[in-house]
């Protein structure tokens, strides 16, 4: 018995595979990418009885081993490559008790690869509601396996699954279906040509359009040289194989599964009728959105204020406790305010992902995809484009990667180009701080103006995305065919554990992903704001003291004048003044200009940058929001962040392509610099014009 067993979790999408993974691994899991590609790789460790450990890989959801997307490539490549360090000792095929027939297709294919396979039938708690009964001993006999009847919701059957994993050597590797019967002559020839190879592996290598990257290249080439049939003939054989498998599955389930429709209590159809209704469906979705944005504001205000004041006190404490000097200033004025600028948004980001996770877990998100398909089609996109657009509310990078399951190149390209318009979580800190400064706190029918503004910004982003899609659909002359299929999973109460793990994982990646960049940029900015060339900077004290000698300023006022003079003549001040003429018509000063430039690395850097710039030279304990609210426009004498400049900034961030990483991903996904450069130029120019008009009209 090996001390560590490699286990692959395989299954159709929406079978609760990730819930099984979470139940087996708990917090002992990590998320990464498969080497060389950007498909998410989830792996974890599960402690089994008798001191044995299982290394579990949660493979991307797939309907069969006939791969049509990059995600499915990953599954097939792993199962065909025995040399892979992750090659499973045992495969666990997770299936949904309500969709056994469809799920068993994949199961029978994996069995043909002679990998010890366990069938885990999930969502068993729904059997009584659906009137389903299973003859487990019969199914085990026919399917040549052991079955674990599990319910991750009720935490049932997981121990039985662990027992089966630990005893995987007792599992039969006998196939369920003899696939070679679909063309005996062809398969006999194949068997004779490669007597030492597994027949079904040979067939998969020959019949798939997979770009085998990890499997031995020579081996694949030799096998492919046996393609004695045309591509169309191979496809026909593949279809025959699928029909044969379904015949076997139908015959097995005819005896092994009984469904009493009379005892089924199905709310699903009734709920679908309302939630996907052409009027009520949209209205309900709109109300849900409103509720989410209101809750984000109402629930997070207390923890946010607390975090803000903690960082202000921490900065003050550092200054008072450590010996005076440049490094102490760097920590108190650069690092702490910079980090505070990201940590403060944890409550709102966590609440946003909490709501998204609940909507996904409950099965409602698929209904939204279905609803939106009606709208998307009018703009030259399919419902599949809505998945990247909704994922874009978290981050444009995974969203752009999610376009890989769009078959039509034109639709995929358009989706890639317009996805950065959707409001990502990096825009959220910018929106929240500006909204809190320029939008009053009053309410309209119980909804705060601030929450309504935030929702409006999300709608503007989405509107800009679909309008651009419509425009691109008219301009781009690319011929391609498309189809849209979406699976509607059953409605279910979200599992707390799944939701919590999603929130923790997403919030962690937001804080640590952006946090490191913000910390580094805060350090560089503090340096640029605290050092400068020439006499104006080096002799600031003498210059300011002489200039204000006749005004009898207090010590505090004089120190503020010196700090302000130094900042203006620091490296950052000189750079800021150089770009100021370009941004002045938009209502911004040079400090905002610096924040705009630095936030090109990542949008959320904007708040941290302003927090750092405004902290340099200040001795007072002050929160980020108060520092920004106290900034004065030197020309008008009024607040720098007023309604006109605030709206202008919000619109600039809504439309501008302020993200280097997204541009890099677009370049990789389109394999050309042309598209990211066009995207950057058009989005930034559009953002500038809209922000300019907004400020000039509102000022």
């Amino acid at each position: 018995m090996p001390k560590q067993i490699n286990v692959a979790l395989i299954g159709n999408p929406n079978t609760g595979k990730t819930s099984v993974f979470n139940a087996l691994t708990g917090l002992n899991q990590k998320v990464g990418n498969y080497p060389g590609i950007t498909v998410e790789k989830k792996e974890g460790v599960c402690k089994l009885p008798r001191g044995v450990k299982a290394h579990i890989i949660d493979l991307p959801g797939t309907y069969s081993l006939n791969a049509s997307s990059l995600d499915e490539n990953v599954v097939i490549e792993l199962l065909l490559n025995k040399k892979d360090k992750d090659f499973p000792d045992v495969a666990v095929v997770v299936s949904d008790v309500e969709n056994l027939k469809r799920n068993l297709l994949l199961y029978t294919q994996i069995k043909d690869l002679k990998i010890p396979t366990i069938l885990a039938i999930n969502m068993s708690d729904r059997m009584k509601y659906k009137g389903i009964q299973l003859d487990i001993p019969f199914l085990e006999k026919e399917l040549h396996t052991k079955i674990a009847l599990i319910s991750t919701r009720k935490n049932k059957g997981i121990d039985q699954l662990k027992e089966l994993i630990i005893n995987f050597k007792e599992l039969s590797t006998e196939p369920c279906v003899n696939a070679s019967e679909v063309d005996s002559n062809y398969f006999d020839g194949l068997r004779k040509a490669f007597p030492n190879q597994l027949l079904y592996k040979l067939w998969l290598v020959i019949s798939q359009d997979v770009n085998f990257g990890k499997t031995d290249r020579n081996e694949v080439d030799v096998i492919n040289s046996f393609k004695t049939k045309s591509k169309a003939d191979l496809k026909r054989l593949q279809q025959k194989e699928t029909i044969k498998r379904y015949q076997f599955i139908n015959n097995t389930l005819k005896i092994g599964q009984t469904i009493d429709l009379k005892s089924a209590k199905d709310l699903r159809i009734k709920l679908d009728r309302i939630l996907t209704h052409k009027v009520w469906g949209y209205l309900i979705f709109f109300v849900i959105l409103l509720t989410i944005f209101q809750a984000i504001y109402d629930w997070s205000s207390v923890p946010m204020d607390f975090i803000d004041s903690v960082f202000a006190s921490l900065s003050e404490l550092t200054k008072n406790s450590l010996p005076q000097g440049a490094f102490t200033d760097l920590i108190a004025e650069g690092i702490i305010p910079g980090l505070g600028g990201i940590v403060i948004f944890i409550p709102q980001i966590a609440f946003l992902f909490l709501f998204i996770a609940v909507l996904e877990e409950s099965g409602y998100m698929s209904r939204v995809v279905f609803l939106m398909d009606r709208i998307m089609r009018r703009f030259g996109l399919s419902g599949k484009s809505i998945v990247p657009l909704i994922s874009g509310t978290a981050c444009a990078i995974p969203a752009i990667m999610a376009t890989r399951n769009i078959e039509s190149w034109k639709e995929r390209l358009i989706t890639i180009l317009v996805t950065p318009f959707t409001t990502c979580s990096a825009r959220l800190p910018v929106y929240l701080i500006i909204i809190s400064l320029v939008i009053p706190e009053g309410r309209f029918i119980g909804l705060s103006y601030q929450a309504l503004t935030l929702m409006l910004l999300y709608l503007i982003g989405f509107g800009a995305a679909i309008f651009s899609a419509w425009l691109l659909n008219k301009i781009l002359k690319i011929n391609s065919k498309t189809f849209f299929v979406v699976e509607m999973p059953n409605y279910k109460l979200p599992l707390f554990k799944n939701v919590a793990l999603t929130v923790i994982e997403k919030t962690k990646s937001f804080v640590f992903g952006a946090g490191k960049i913000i910390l580094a940029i805060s350090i560089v900015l503090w340096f640029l704001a605290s050092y400068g060339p020439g006499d104006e900077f080096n002799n600031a004290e003498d210059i300011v003291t002489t200039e204000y000698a006749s005004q009898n300023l207090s010590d505090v006022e004089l120190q503020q004048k010196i700090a302000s003079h130094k900042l203006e003549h620091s490296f950052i001040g000189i750079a800021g003044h150089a770009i100021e003429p370009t941004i002045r018509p938009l209502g911004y000063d040079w400090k905002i200009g610096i924040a705009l430039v630095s936030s090109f690395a990542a949008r959320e850097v904007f708040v941290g940058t302003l927090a750092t710039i405004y902290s340099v030279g200040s001795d007072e304990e002050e929160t980020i929001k108060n520092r920004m609210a106290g900034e004065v426009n030197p020309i008008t004498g009024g607040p720098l962040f007023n309604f006109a400049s605030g709206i202008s900034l919000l619109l600039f961030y809504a439309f501008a392509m302020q993200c280097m990483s997204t541009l890099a991903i677009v370049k990789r996904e389109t394999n050309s610099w042309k598209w990211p450069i066009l995207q950057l130029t058009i989005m930034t120019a559009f953002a500038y014009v809209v922000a300019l008009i907004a400020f000039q009209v509102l000022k």
Partner: protein
Amino acid sequence: MNIIIQNILVFSTLGLALAFLVRKFFWKPKKASAKSCGGDDGCGCH
């Protein structure tokens, strides 16, 4: 003495921060099996 140490710490931290940013945005390790999915290159994803 304190000022010299603090200045050394400041410039060391600045160097680390700059090195991190350069590595993050301008330096990418070569990946052996990286593939493009941008065109009809038979990768099977479009």
